[in-house]
């Protein structure tokens, strides 16, 4: 295992993960809002935001699917070493999936939950080059009137929202920035 895989974890995990979680909670509760999340220093090309989110939420109980661009030994070892999460090749078994949008497609292969347990769906962490506050208009729970967020696609998210109460939930990460799109958010144009 390379030294890079062993470093870059949270200093003082209880406090760092508490801070990271509050940001993750805040942006999920306010879709479209861009927050700052940090604490982890994962090997490139994984972003600080995605790494921090993974350290906050993943552990041996959460199978993680890594996109091909993140499947290098260094990142895989980093995730395994710091979280103990099992890395899975099968999308259908993933509780979390991390990668660029084009690698995550087709997102319809990830579990969307069941009518009795809609929570048993994958959370996708979409790695982005940048985060912008302009783009499709979002409406729904957590949003006062409306908000805009730059997204890699529109139709897929509209199709996902139409599955409600089933569906996937998304985080978008760029550098140390993070935003979220739960299944309840409706997109226009």
């Amino acid at each position, binding site marked *: 295992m390379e030294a890079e895989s062993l470093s870059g974890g949270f200093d003082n995990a209880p406090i760092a993960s*508490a801070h990271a979680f509050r940001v993750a909670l805040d942006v999920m509760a306010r879709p479209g809002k861009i927050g700052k999340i940090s604490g982890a220093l994962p090997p490139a090309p994984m972003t600080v935001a995605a790494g921090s989110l993974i350290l906050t939420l993943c552990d041996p109980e959460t199978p993680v699917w890594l996109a091909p661009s993140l499947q290098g030994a260094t990142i895989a070892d980093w995730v395994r070493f710091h979280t103990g999460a099992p890395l899975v090749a099968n999308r259908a078994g993933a509780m979390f999936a991390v990668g660029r949008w084009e690698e995550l497609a087709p997102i319809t292969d990830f579990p969307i939950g069941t009518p009795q347990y809609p929570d048993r769906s994958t959370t996708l962490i979409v790695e982005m080059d940048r985060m912008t506050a302009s783009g499709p208009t979002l409406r729904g729970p957590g949003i006062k009137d409306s908000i805009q967020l730059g997204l890699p696609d529109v139709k897929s998210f509209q199709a996902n929202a139409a599955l409600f109460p089933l569906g996937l939930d998304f985080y978008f990460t760029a550098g140390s920035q993070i935003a979220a799109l739960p299944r309840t958010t409706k997109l226009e144009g």
Partner: protein
Amino acid sequence: MSSDYNFAYLDEQTKRMIRRALLKGVAIPGYQVPFASREMPMPYGWGTGGVQVTAACLLPDDTLKVIDQGADDTTNAVSIRKFFEKTASVSVTEETTEATVIQTRHRIPETPLTEGQILVYQVPIPEPLRFLEPRETETRKMHALEEYGLMHVKLYEDIARHGHIATAYAYPVKVEGRYVMDPSPIPKFDNPKMEMAGLQLFGAGREQRIYAVPPYTRVVSLDFEDHPFERGGAQQPCGLCAATDAYLDEVIMDDIGTRMFVCSDTDYCRKRREVGHVGEMGVPKAEDAA
């Protein structure tokens, strides 16, 4: 105690499990997410669900307020506040506006919550259909199929018998047009406040359920066109601060049954008295020795 336990008492794996449940709860407003509630050092029924949710959310720089029955000084509120002072070293407050996290049992503060605030509810029975159908396997199906006829029948039977819906607290709501949800045993007076700027999180420890209502989410109290929801509320102003827009407790004053009505929200009442409002039985704040 503080040095022997992890930050905010719970171990990190437990917090991660609760945090994942919270995020799915936020993503599916009103849906009850199962979670593996842990034994806490206070009994089930004393707010173990709320305490676990709070513990999973707290930051060392948070300011925490804990209320029970609207009041900061009730014994259980004091006990929970002290627990987090010790285990998470957070600052505490009695002022609604100062708090970043508020844990509550049975009330929503009168002062509207703002965007930065989280309201954590302690929930005894999270399933709104439980008293109509005791089986979890059945109620889960009913939620899955959005089959809420039983609830409407129950409410309608009330109207047929009493002329009103005879539910005064824990009055069921429909969240974002999908899930029927138990708002916890708050008086129905508080139901309209649930459409708010703050984030609402609900924890039921013994029943192992977490649910959430994000800010600006539609929360509609169930009713009928010809029998719209009535908020109810006190018939007279607060005896101490003269508030007419607050939920009041009835206090028996003496052996012959003299009563007075005072704000259940102690912070709201005190604030009003501080700025000079005086009720029929109160004295100006400056002269109040208590």
